[in-house]
């Protein structure tokens, strides 16, 4: 299992280096106008990839030498880099089990792990069920969900907007040469071919981020699903399409099926060499997904105090609109001094030096706003009601 993840990580890293300045080289036949260039410029910026945040919380001595975590599979590749680097720098072993976001939530509710990890914030009912009091949401890293497709003669960089994607996934747009798609992509050679929709067959944080964006942008999507309380989440009553298990299942379907469109994490699209689209953001620009535009997605959002927020459709000019974060879930009040110290140390490291590591495996570091708020969350961890550090 772990070997496989490492292989994927390695592939992603290689692809990432070969994609330096991604936006300027791709964009398909339809690449035109200043908007595309703007996305290209920001994707070419290397500065955004390694933010070099300084560590706000100094290391506390006397921490435990091991921590256990479980949850999100999306964060697993970067977590394996973190656990390796962190054991080398601080000598603390962090054992992380990628069992899925839902599992991570269940385990932190039951208190069987030191921290959980989830791609979506916990629901109120889940927070109420927690056995050990309030749970903090600490954003760790960012990811993008990208529309990927396999259409003969059409290159990467096809343009989409939220409503068009919503209509495709609701089964209202069924051909690649639909007027809505042609209007967005003048110049692209779109065939008269049925669209094969591919989606996740298992419950997934990726699905939650994707459908959250569709719900915000596409009234057709909301209507087809029977209301905005049903049109987003980890499980969706998909009206059309082929289900694949996991990101690799969906990318497999897309690879095998001519005329298909689906959604996967950016890292998988790059690793599998899938064609992926550029998506119109709230400011009206077509944005290519890359580390810089994903990070830009977290800028300018009004964050609630508990940080349980949707990051899709960010207002920034350069924001890639289908962006999500993985949260670490931690009991606010710790009862074991050694564990509490180790947790604070680990998360203050992941939020500073760890952010540079994330970029090296194509995970986007948190934006400045969100990183500061995340550090604030770590400072809220208490030991039996008092401060953790002494």
């Amino acid at each position, binding site marked *: 299992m772990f070997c496989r993840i490492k292989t994927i990580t390695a592939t992603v890293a290689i692809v990432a280096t070969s994609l330096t300045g991604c936006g300027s080289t791709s964009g398909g036949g339809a690449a035109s106008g200043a908007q595309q260039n703007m996305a290209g410029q920001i994707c070419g910026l290397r500065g955004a990839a390694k933010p070099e945040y300084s560590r706000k919380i100094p290391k506390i001595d006397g921490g435990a030498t091991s921590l256990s975590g479980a949850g999100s599979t999306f964060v697993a590749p970067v977590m394996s880099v973190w656990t390796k680097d962190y054991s080398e720098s601080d000598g603390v072993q962090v054992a992380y089990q990628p069992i899925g976001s839902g599992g991570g939530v269940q385990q932190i509710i039951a208190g069987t792990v030191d921290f959980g990890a989830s791609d979506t914030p916990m629901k109120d009912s889940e927070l109420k069920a927690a056995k050990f009091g309030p749970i903090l949401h600490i954003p760790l890293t960012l990811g993008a969900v990208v529309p990927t497709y396999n259409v003969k003669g059409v290159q990467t960089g096809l343009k989409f907007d939220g409503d068009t994607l919503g209509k495709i996934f609701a089964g209202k747009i069924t051909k690649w040469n639909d007027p809505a798609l042609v209007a967005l992509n003048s110049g692209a050679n779109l065939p008269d071919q049925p669209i094969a929709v591919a989606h996740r067959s*298992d419950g997934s944080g990726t699905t939650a981020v994707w459908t959250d964006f569709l719900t915000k942008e596409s009234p057709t999507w909301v209507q087809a699903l029977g209301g905005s309380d049903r049109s987003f989440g980890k499980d969706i009553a998909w009206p059309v399409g082929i289900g694949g298990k996991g990101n690799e299942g969906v990318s497999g379907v897309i690879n095998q099926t001519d005329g298909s469109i689906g959604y996967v994490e950016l890292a998988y699209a790059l690793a599998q060499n899938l064609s992926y689209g550029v998506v119109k953001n709230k400011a009206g620009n077509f944005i290519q997904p890359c580390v810089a535009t994903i990070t830009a997605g977290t800028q300018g959002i009004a964050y609630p105090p508990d940080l349980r927020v949707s990051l899709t459709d960010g207002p920034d000019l350069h924001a890639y609109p289908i962006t999500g974060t993985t949260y670490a879930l931690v009991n606010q009040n710790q009862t074991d001094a050694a564990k509490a110290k180790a947790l604070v140390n680990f998360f203050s490291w992941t939020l500073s030096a760890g952010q540079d590591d994330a970029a090296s495996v194509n995970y986007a570091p948190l934006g400045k706003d969100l990183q500061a708020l995340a550090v604030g969350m770590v400072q809220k961890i208490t030991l039996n009601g008092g401060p953790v550090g002494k």
Partner: protein
Amino acid sequence: MTADVLASADTSGPSSDGRFIDGLFGRLMAAAALTVIAVLVATAVFLLIRAWPALSHYGPLSFFHARWAPSESAAASSTPNPYGIVQFIYGTVVTSLVAMAIAVPVAIGVALYITNLSPAVLRRPLSSLVDLLAAIPSVVYGFWGVFALIPALGPIGRGLTSVSGIPVIGWVFQGPFFGYSVFAAGVVLAIMVLPIVTAICREVFDTAPRAEKEAALAFGATKWEMLRLAVLPRSRSGIFGAAILGLGRAFGETIAVTMLIGNNVLTIPHGIMRAGSTMPSVIANEFTEANQPFHLDSLFVVAFGLLFLSLLVNIIGKRIVGRVSEHIA
């Protein structure tokens, strides 16, 4: 029961030591036999207990409709039940029937060839080759299905979907066909059930009395007439039993089907060329992240239904095959 038999057979035992060991051996074997029964019963009871919250919340009968939408379970307090399972039963039965429609004729052909037509030298190698098909792990079939079968089915599938003008048949084969479908799952299942159906057919054909076959040939019958007169008539119910046992095998197949069927869980697909789902595939897909209200419990309802269906089919199949061999003996 086993213990009793062994104990009574032991009266002439030479030494008390041997008697003791024999008794112990008997009890151990009886315990092993009981374990099998206990595991079966315990599994059924466990599934029922885990399914119980959903069964009592929605009512057992409310599961018999064809719409599975876990995302709506929070909104629907008890009616309508968002966990309808009819489309999974439908998918399980239809994929298996597609498999049977392909596998049974092929299996009969292979078995007839092996038992009656092939040169004696070829019989053993052919039989073991067919049996070897059963040794291929199902995930390998699934993998092969995704990368070899689905591309190969493309032209066939698109050809089949072009008959849309004809009533009924047009509905069954309506498109669009993208590869991942009930049909593709059925084809790979056909290959997977071929060994068991062939093996039973072979045994059934072998029991045809040699004298009758030779008599038919002596009267100047051709080989085909000999098979038709002396072999096939008395094998009919045996073939049927073999098909039923094949069905039992196909019902439970999980991973290969999940990889090929397209996993449309929402409702019954129109025809067999579109994506569907089966009882095993929905469990395999959803159990890891079943976090909606009564979601996991409802998957246990599906699992219980699957156990029930598989046991039923296997019992019926075994009965038929058993009766046939008794009849011939």
